């Protein structure tokens, strides 16, 4: 999604409010933006606390700063700056975290982002954007350009079915119909699940797959059609490459309880850390956490 991001930002960087800061990352990806944005593309160095503080200062003066790094370096290292400088003041700082979940694979645990939006959504005013497909990026960037609050943009790898195009970007999208469970998948992992579902011809078993791309979800933000799918099947399953605590599963389950609409069955597929103590690809870690599509489909039966 980095290429799509760069292309979209190149289109928007002529906006006089635009400023881009990177924590020394983006080599072989962001050069076109660097060239186009000129003095408004700033390599802030390996110093994320300062970068976020500077961004808050920029935003306080009416500018619209975008910050880029590998996900954990943008949300975990400078957490207090995000909390105090950005969120307490409700400033429109955009934090871009590349490599949500296990996307950095065998690069190791320090580069994974398993608790990013859960941690950030404890803060006031912040909204997390988790686009699922590369095609979402232009719309997300467009939306964020006009977004007046702190935002976290979690980037991953586009895993959509090769033969299909996703519906236009929105917080909620339904991509498959069936008579099985209502499945809500957060961000790119929805693409992997969607691909697997194409081979599932039995409509009785085929889940209704919903792609969720913006958090938090207020109780009123759950679409009626989703509530209908949950009621019809009696089963809500939430899939996310994020730990259970603070994730979308807990959030949606709470919403249903608040609405007085608890599902008969609730399943939660989520990141479980490093169960074996070994490291590998994104798929290796998904499999350890029962997040691979085949594992999910089997569990849903």
């Amino acid at each position, binding site marked *: 999604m980095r290429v799509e991001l760069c292309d979209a930002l190149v289109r928007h960087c002529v906006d006089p409010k635009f400023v881009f800061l990177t924590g020394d990352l983006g080599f072989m990806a962001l050069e076109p933006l660097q060239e186009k944005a000129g003095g408004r593309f700033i390599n802030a160095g390996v110093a994320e*606390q300062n970068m976020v503080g500077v961004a808050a200062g920029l935003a306080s003066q009416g500018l619209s700063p975008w910050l880029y790094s590998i996900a954990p370096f943008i949300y975990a290292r400078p957490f207090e700056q995000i909390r105090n*400088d950005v969120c307490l*003041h409700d400033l429109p700082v955009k934090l871009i975290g590349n490599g949500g979940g296990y996307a950095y694979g065998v690069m190791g645990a320090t580069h994974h982002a398993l608790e990013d939006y859960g941690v950030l959504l404890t803060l006031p005013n912040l909204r997390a954007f988790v686009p699922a497909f590369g095609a979402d990026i232009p719309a997300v960037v467009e939306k964020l350009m006009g977004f007046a609050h702190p935002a976290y943009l979690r980037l991953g790898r586009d895993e959509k079915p090769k033969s299909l195009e996703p519906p236009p970007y929105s917080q909620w999208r339904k991509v498959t119909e069936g008579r099985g469970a209502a499945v809500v998948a957060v961000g790119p992992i929805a693409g992997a699940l969607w691909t697997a579902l194409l081979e599932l011809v039995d409509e009785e078993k085929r889940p209704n797959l919903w792609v969720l791309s913006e958090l938090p979800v207020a109780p009123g933000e759950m679409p009626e059609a989703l509530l209908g799918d949950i009621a019809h099947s009696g089963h809500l399953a939430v899939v996310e490459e994020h730990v259970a605590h603070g994730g979308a599963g807990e959030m949606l389950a709470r919403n249903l309880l608040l609405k007085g609409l608890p599902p008969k069955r609730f399943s939660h597929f989520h990141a479980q850390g490093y169960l074996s103590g070994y490291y590998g690809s994104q798929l290796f870690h998904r499999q350890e956490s029962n997040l691979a599509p085949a594992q999910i489909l089997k569990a849903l039966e």
Partner: protein
Amino acid sequence: MDSIYLISTGAVLDSFAQIRLKAYKRLLQMHFESGVGHIGGNLSSLDTLLVLYHQVLQKDDLFILSKGHSAGALYVALWSLGRLTEGDLKSFHGEKTLVSGHPAPKWSSDILFATGSLGHGFSLAAGVVLAKKLKKEPGRVFCLMSDGEWQEGSNWEALIFSVKKELGPLALVIDWNGLQGFGRTQDIGGLDPFAEKLRALGMPVEEMDGHDPIALEKALNRPYPALRTLIAHTHKGRGVSFMQDKMEWHYKPLTEPLYRQALEEIEKLQGGAS
């Protein structure tokens, strides 16, 4: 000082010396009435804040208090200009107040940022001055920091960034009172020789008596270098014998007899107008 300024209390034209005396007394009163500590670091920074607000800051200039625990001195400086009311100061540290122990966000155009956790103000100030540069807007940025605060690594990040990006006009003022929450700054952080360290990283440094309003005003209003650090040598609890340079007055609240004594000493020290 012979400059003439308007002070809100009584709406008469007072000399800076009178403003200063009133501000010192009002700060002591505020901390006594609220039963709140942090008076030591407020007294050490009050002169800098008064000079900044009365003799330095112009329409396009911006100020950031990085040492948020000197909120009391900031509130009193704003009160001395009529930007906070007597009622505001009476509510200091109270219930349902905006005048909290450390500056709160989003309520006063004079307080750009909520601070209190140390090591934030320098980066914020760097961002503000960078915004001015990018927007081609006039105005200077000032940031008041503590000495102990330099134990925070984020300041060194901000230092590298500001020097490398040639930011300015930005003046950091360090309230160098030598004491922090639980000991002497030099014993805990070992920053000396601090000025040499900053200079080695490309930051120009000037040192002065932080209780000399003339020296402060000259240094703060000097236009060059655009990015610079002013080390203001100060005394924690300045002007009050039992507080001055005493570590425990970082946190200790005032009793009534001590408050009366402090007022008398301040009156004696500054009453004749300096």
